[in-house]
């Protein structure tokens, strides 16, 4: 209530200022505007509620990434960073300026690290926009800080449903966007596959307490019940950093589910799969991971075993076609020095970077006599919010009113000769 009052008061003031500007512009144009033959960017920025980011002549355009680049899932953040770097090198200068990406570490396991990254980003007035976070958990504390500073954020890999649910405690707010899909689509696709392709009737699920895992397994459970009356025998949890899952596996086995759905990360995921084969009651149980383990860490950690037991993995459909295979991947491999992608979100990070750059170009208010460029923070947000049919690397992207911009194509893969091979693909409406 108080917030809406305040913002409507703000709008009223803004309207007054705009009206005043319009009046003065029509009656007597200011001197500097007349001198440059365009709108005076300083005055235009003063009229904006959120103001502008100023980039002095000769300085680069600065954006920030806030990903998990240390800690147990550092490969997830590094994967996205390689995607950003590929886009950065390919795109080169923007508006005749170099682009500098400041890489902040938002971590993954600990929500506080998201806040720390956000604080250091807003402390730098040169930053135009943000790409982050890796994990949904760290986006939750980061977004209020960025929103207060008027900074637009595009996440390449947050998939938790609640981040784009207005009214939910985890809702990312008006400055939050993502090029990753919401897990509602992933969970539905998993349920569809369980019902229609595997024809199973009982599952058990595991999560690690993160919004991503907890919400994804819940969507899968709900959809499994809705789509084919499937029964869930248990929804247990682990902790990030646990190594011994034998006790948990023994209790899961007591209910003999046909499938265990484990949307967790590495290294817990591979450990869980390895140990499941040591429990007699789970010999025929199908292991089913999600995008948190659809990566090189899983292949290195338990790839042979996962292939042997025919484990399934849901995640973004990486069949993005020619541009991804012919241009993006070679550039990515050249940067990373690897032969497979570290994680499946490099493409989404590539799109996030390009959308952000387009937004910055669109939000260019003008330059003053010294060559300083002015960029409207609000216009950056508006550009991204209004994104429609954008030809991204990962598909045709359109941002909905809650910040969901990602392509909704999910594939379910199995490992063949150490490579993820799709066995099922879906596009949800």
């Amino acid at each position, binding site marked *: 209530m108080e917030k809406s009052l305040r913002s409507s008061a703000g709008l009223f003031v803004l309207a007054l200022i705009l009206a005043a500007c319009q009046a003065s512009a029509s009656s007597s144009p200011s001197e500097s505007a007349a001198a440059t033959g365009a709108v005076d960017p300083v005055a235009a920025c003063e009229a904006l509620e959120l103001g502008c980011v100023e980039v002095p002549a000769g300085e680069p355009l600065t954006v920030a990434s806030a990903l998990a680049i240390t800690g147990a899932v550092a490969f997830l953040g590094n994967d996205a960073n390689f995607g950003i770097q590929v886009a950065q090198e390919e795109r080169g200068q923007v508006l005749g300026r170099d682009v500098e990406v400041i890489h902040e570490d938002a971590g993954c396991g600990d929500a506080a690290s998201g806040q720390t990254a956000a604080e250091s980003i807003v402390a730098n007035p040169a930053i135009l926009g943000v790409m982050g976070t890796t994990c949904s958990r760290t986006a939750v504390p980061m977004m209020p800080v960025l929103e207060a500073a008027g900074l637009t954020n595009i996440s390449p890999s947050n998939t938790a449903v609640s981040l784009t649910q207005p009214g939910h405690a985890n809702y990312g707010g008006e400055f939050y966007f993502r090029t990753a899909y919401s897990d509602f689509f992933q969970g539905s696709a998993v349920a569809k596959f369980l019902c229609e392709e595997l024809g199973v009737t009982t599952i058990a699920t595991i999560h690690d307490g993160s919004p991503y895992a907890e919400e994804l397994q819940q969507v899968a459970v709900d959809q499994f019940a809705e789509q084919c009356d499937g029964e869930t025998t248990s929804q247990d949890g682990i902790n990030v950093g646990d190594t011994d899952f034998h006790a*948990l596996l023994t209790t899961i086995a007591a209910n003999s589910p046909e499938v265990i759905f484990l949307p967790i990360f590495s290294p817990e995921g591979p450990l869980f799969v390895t140990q499941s084969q040591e429990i007699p009651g789970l010999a025929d149980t199908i292991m089913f991971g999600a995008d948190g383990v659809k990566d090189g860490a899983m292949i290195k950690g338990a790839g042979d075993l996962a292939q042997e037991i025919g484990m399934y993995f849901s995640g973004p459909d990486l069949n993005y076609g020619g541009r991804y295979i012919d241009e993006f991947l070679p550039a990515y491999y050249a940067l990373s020095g690897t032969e497979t992608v570290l994680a499946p979100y490099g493409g989404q990070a590539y799109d996030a970077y390009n959308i952000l750059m387009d937004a910055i170009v669109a939000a260019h208010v003008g330059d003053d006599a010294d060559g300083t460029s002015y960029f409207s923070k609000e216009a950056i947000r508006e550009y991204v919010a209004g994104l429609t049919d954008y030809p991204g690397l990962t598909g045709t992207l359109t941002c909905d009113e809650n910040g969901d911009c990602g392509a909704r194509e999910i594939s379910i893969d199995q490992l063949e000769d150490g490579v993820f091979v799709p066995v099922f693909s879906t596009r949800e409406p």
Partner: protein
Amino acid sequence: MRRPARISLVNLLLWALGGGIILFVAVGSWLTLQQGLLTFEDWRSLVIFGVTQGSIYALIALGYTLVYGVLLMINFAHGDVFMFGAMTSFFVADALAQAGFLNSNPIIGMVIVVAVSAVSAMIVALILERIAYRPLRRAPRLVPLITAIGASLFISNSVRGLYGELARAWPRIDSLVGTVDIAGIPFLKTQVVVIVGAILMMVFLYWFVERTRTGRAMRAVSENKDTAALMGIDVDRTIVITFAIGGILAGVAGVLYGIVFNQVHWFMGFLPGIKAFTAAVLGGIGNIIGAMLGGVSLGVLESIAPTLLLTGFGVPTPNQLKDVVAFTVLVLVLIFRPYGLFGRPEGK
């Protein structure tokens, strides 16, 4: 002069707390067993899993306890010495497995893996002592503690920088796949190797500390460094040996970890390190038998307690509360026996 014992409020509260816990444990266990979800065989295998995990904790815990014994400091980087041993064991075992040697000569292969890992973990422990701790021997007690945390981050991130951040799959040894019956109870072969290996290391350590001259020197230094020096004991050398033994035990624990969990990564030292430290405190820090029993009890507790105590009360995800249960026990032990289960009050 003795004063007659008086019942204080604190004592009353403690008794109430103790009674409450016993009631909670009894009711929780009874309710869980009433549900009959797990069979007797399931519970038995949970205990065996717990003992296996606990044996690894115990080997790491010995390193904490030995160093605490002689230096009265917590070597927080010890978990990363263990990680270094495990990573080394991966590279050796993987190379031997690629060459086919590990499967054709499993015993000689394992001896090589254990020897290389133990020695390299020992070298890391020695470097640590020389660079990070010895210069601070006379500094206030908090200083080496902070250095230890720094050293821990340094070691783990160096390994990450050298070998990357992805987890590596420790090779499977064909002759260790499957189960073996001992007294009618099925054990995984890997569990037998781990439990027997840990027992051998502990017996060796006990013999070393109790029966050799160097062991006697270690005990003397742990009693009183200055007096030991006056008695002609080379204190520096004894401390170096203590670190070396801690490193060897951590290296062996790293190999055993690889055998059980088939996976190693640069971050793996942290949590087992904390758990082993907990085990050492549980058993009474500075006490060797205490560290061994503390490690095994912590492992068993983690394995059975969440399911046994919480399922009955309808807690939906008991295993997620595994650490809560383990650390609650630690807190309780420290409330009722501040010097641990087998320790002795300081200054006595």
